[in-house]
């Protein structure tokens, strides 16, 4: 983990100075084809240096004893600097204290197994206990096949914890990013009080290839893209990456709890 921690610090150092006016940098980044990581997202969303990650260290979990799974995770951990497909913690955004989770598709297409499910559940529980808003940037290919039925159970678990948080007055903002599909789309991603979608993100339950095979026809251009979701009534707003932070600050202000 030493590498991962150093990696993380390095990332924050790199982007901290950009905090004052990130717009030109973000606009440039939108044209960039380098992977946009959870660290990039946090640096572009949270107030500089304010993010503190939860300790989510998890024992090595391999419910199916699936050949090569733990080795693959280890390699990815070294390559990406994250333990699994999500980073979760607290931060301030425009001065508002918030619980923030960011999924990172470099890690097995950000599929959801126990680690991701647990991160979301703990984040919602922390937000609940501390009366903080919860913001999740979702991205995922769906449930993690290598964890089998236990991955499917994470859909029920995350939905239950988030529902409880929401029922007791918590604000949950879901920001759907590219791609949000399968078991993540069909659970906590779609349960936001407010749901934003990043411009051009692919969002759906079944993947386009599976749908085309099932119905035997080609899908129209733009099918399951952010604007399509807005048109069909599934998201509040489609937002460019460069304005997500300011949109979140607005929403946090609108939901501020007066003491």
């Amino acid at each position, binding site marked *: 983990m030493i590498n991962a921690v150093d990696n993380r610090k390095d990332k924050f150092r790199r982007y901290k100075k950009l905090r004052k006016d990130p717009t030109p940098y973000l606009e440039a980044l939108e044209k960039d084809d380098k992977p946009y990581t959870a660290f990039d997202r946090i640096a572009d969303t949270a107030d500089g240096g304010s993010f503190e990650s939860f300790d989510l260290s*998890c*024992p090595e*979990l391999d*419910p*199916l004893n*699936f050949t090569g799974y733990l080795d693959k995770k280890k390699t990815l951990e070294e390559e990406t600097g994250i333990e699994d497909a999500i980073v979760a913690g607290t931060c301030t955004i425009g001065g508002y204290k918030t619980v923030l989770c960011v999924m990172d598709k470099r890690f097995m297409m950000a599929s959801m197994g*126990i*680690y991701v*499910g*647990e991160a979301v*559940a703990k984040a919602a529980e922390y937000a609940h206990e501390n009366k903080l808003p919860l913001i999740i940037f979702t991205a995922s290919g769906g*449930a993690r*096949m*290598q*964890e*089998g*039925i*236990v*991955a*499917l*159970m*994470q*859909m*029920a*678990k995350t*939905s*239950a*914890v*988030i*529902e*409880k948080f929401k*029922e007791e007055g918590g604000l949950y903002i879901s920001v759907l990013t590219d791609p949000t599909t*399968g*078991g993540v*789309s*069909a*659970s*906590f*991603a*779609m*349960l936001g009080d407010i749901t934003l979608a990043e411009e051009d993100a692919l*969002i*759906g*339950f*079944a993947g386009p290839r*599976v*749908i085309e095979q*099932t*119905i035997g026809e080609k*899908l129209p251009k733009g*099918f*399951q893209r952010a604007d*399509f979701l807005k048109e*069909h*009534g*599934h998201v509040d707003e489609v937002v460019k990456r460069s304005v997500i932070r300011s949109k979140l600050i607005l929403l946090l202000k609108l939901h501020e709890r007066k003491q």
Partner: protein
Amino acid sequence: MEAIERVLAARDPGRLKITDYIDALFTDFFEQRGDRICKEDPSILGGIAMFDDIPVTVIGHRKGKDVDENITCNFGMPGPEAFRKALRLMKQAEKFDRPVITFVDTPGAYPGKEAEMNGISRAIADNLAVMSTLRVPIITIVTGEGSSGGALAISVANRIYMLENAVYSVLSPEGFASILWHDSKRRDEAASVMKLTAKDLYEFGIVEGILSEEDPTEEVRKAIKTALCDLKDKTKEEIVSERYEKFRKFDAGFLKNE
């Protein structure tokens, strides 16, 4: 019996369907149709019936006995309207204090164009969220194929039982093989590693009991009776919190506790 043999047994067209269980186990069944928004999707069947002397809400995937019937009920693959109907019936069960009994037998939610337009993800997510807080007992019987989110969307239950040749998995073995090995023909191998049999799920603590198939309807009757009896003295808060804990426990520690 190999896992793949159970997968095939679970899919056998001659296997008992939800309609057979309703005929055998309940009386006075009244079918309720429609999502009250735009459509009746028959891939999920639901209604009110008597189980012994108590009214219950019955909900389950519907597969047909022949091709025509299967086309009508879309081979038991629900679209969003079917999940919304199920949700409507569950909320009504809560209002009238009726236990909910669900029967699971589906290849999965329908991967279609309209399903996406009409919000299938949200429909499934809503069912998961609402079932986790429903203030009446929910009892699930996995009778055939329990595949993916389409199965889970009616099985966030206090008690789950599986017939001995039923299967319950994150995806079909074909889908699993296709995603992980880019080869859906490795279905049998997928089935063997996926831990999808009733025994596997019992060991994971996902299901409470495995039901013999010698006399399936009788076994299902006994299971429902036991579960209802066990849950009837619990308060509404206890019903909700024990169900919540059942699903919350799939955390970093549960594998070690087995």
